[in-house]
């Protein structure tokens, strides 16, 4: 009895499933063909060249230039993340504490550079920071310096421009998290006699930590793979991992080595996402892109 009733509905359900899979398949095919297949190709190419080999990974893990580049990339990413947090937290805090209209206004100012091409912003920083650039002219005009400062074509310029580009990824999740902290809690803290700074430290700050983690993860991970700013503002000396990949492809035709570097970079990113996902939902990290 039960089976004869469920049969047509099962058939219906199977049709429903088929339809849904058909709807999702064009998008899925594009992603499979242009992300999954290429990454798989890189992984294969990193271990196979006229036979199975670990030579590429041996190079990546033993040769000085690779090690130094990975170390530099992690250092820069860490510095960029910390600076973005220090700059972004007060801004998100202010936007959150102001009346809604003003908060949205501040957020749209944060989004303004977000919607400008990364290339355009890298160019703007070149203009601002170069030897004859706006900042050096200004400093010399005020007679603060006698010689133009080397602000660009080095790690400093790379960090300044990279923070600028990644700051929105810090501010948005911070603001979203702060919005969810009930105001009553702060008032309760104050009514129990705690000073504003104490309520901030004991109540607000801990509750905003998921946003801090989400923002820091996104900024750090994006920075690990950053290419345009170090290439244009690093002056050839700030060789980040992304540049190792591109140089191995474009200049040296070392496809195996490039692939191995790419695989190690991707694994680092995935390990970080996996570790973070144990604390907060990944939707939170990615959702505010």
């Amino acid at each position, binding site marked *: 009895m039960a089976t004869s009733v469920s049969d047509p509905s099962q058939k219906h359900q199977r049709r429903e499933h088929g339809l849904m899979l058909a709807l999702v398949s064009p*998008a*899925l095919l*594009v992603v499979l063909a242009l992300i999954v297949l*290429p990454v798989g190709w890189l992984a294969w190419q990193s271990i196979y060249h006229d036979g199975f080999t670990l030579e590429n990974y041996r190079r990546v893990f033993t040769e000085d230039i690779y090690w130094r580049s990975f170390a530099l990339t992690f250092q820069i990413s860490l510095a960029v993340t910390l600076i973005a947090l220090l700059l972004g937290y007060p801004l998100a805090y202010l936007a959150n504490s102001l009346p809604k209209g003003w908060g949205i206004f501040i957020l749209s100012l944060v989004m303004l550079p977000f919607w400008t091409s990364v290339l355009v912003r890298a160019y703007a920083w070149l203009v601002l920071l*170069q030897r004859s650039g706006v900042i050096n002219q200004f400093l010399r005009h005020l007679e603060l310096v006698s010689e133009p400062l080397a602000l660009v074509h080095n790690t400093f310029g790379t960090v300044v421009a990279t923070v600028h580009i990644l700051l929105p990824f810090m501010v948005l999740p911070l603001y979203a998290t702060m919005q969810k902290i009930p105001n009553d809690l702060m008032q309760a803290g104050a009514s129990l006699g705690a000073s504003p700074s104490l309520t901030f430290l004991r109540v607000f700050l801990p509750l905003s930590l998921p946003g801090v983690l989400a923002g820091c993860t996104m900024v750090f991970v994006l920075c690990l793979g950053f*290419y345009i700013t170090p*290439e244009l503002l690093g002056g050839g000396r700030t060789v980040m991992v992304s540049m190792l990949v591109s140089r191995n492809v474009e200049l040296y035709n070392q496809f195996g080595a490039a692939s191995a570097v790419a695989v190690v970079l991707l694994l680092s990113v995935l390990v970080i996402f996996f570790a973070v996902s144990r604390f907060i939902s990944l939707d939170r990290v990615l959702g505010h892109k």
Partner: protein
Amino acid sequence: MMRASSARIVLYVISVLVLVYLIVPVLIIVPISFSSARFLTFPPPSFSLRWYEQYFSSPAWMQATRVTLTVAFLTVLIATPCGVAAAYAVSQSRLRIMRVIHMALLLPLVVPIIITAVGIFFVYTRVGLVATLPGLVLANVMLGLPYVVISVLAGLQSFDPAQEMVARSLGMNRLRSFFAVTLPQIKSSVVAGGIFAFISAMDETIVALFISGGQYQPLTKRMFTALRDEIDPTIAAISTLMTAASFMLVLLASARQKRSG
């Protein structure tokens, strides 16, 4: 009380400085693009349109502009329907594999773009898509898809699927009920997703560096090459135009989102 308000002042000062840091570099290219000087001086000695003239009279820059616009429009035309269909399926289906598929559709945001770029380059060299228009469009469709999917999923969240059920129980087929009932209600998030896909395609640089070439080089690739060689104010003019285009599109998208409220 006194301490609280002084802390407040410090907060305001820091915030204003951070906003200046965020916004000034975006705006500084505008006066430079209207400067008459060959070299970058600020403030500009006098007003001039020579860099805009140089841009509009250069066949190479014009060709690159045509490529960028073609790629961006085709990207939107392909990525939007694919993304809407996928978002609809992800939100309506109870299949367990949809969760995995949902994650897969967001992969373009997770995998570092340099890795995607090199990987696509290797695949394209095998199938002969390097330096072609279809190759460039396809890559940008993939990069734009997550924006459409995220935007439409957010729109579908506030949509009650029961409404579509009602339309179907009244005799409409699935497709008609989607176009008559569902789509009008999520229209603004569809448009917003499409606009973001357009901006993403217009600004995309890194994949284009590896896979584009010959006559099918977009603006960003030519700009990147030009920036490596010397800083030419023509780029300031192009940057200003690109930024203006982005802002107008974003305003359009947010105006639509607000209207649907």
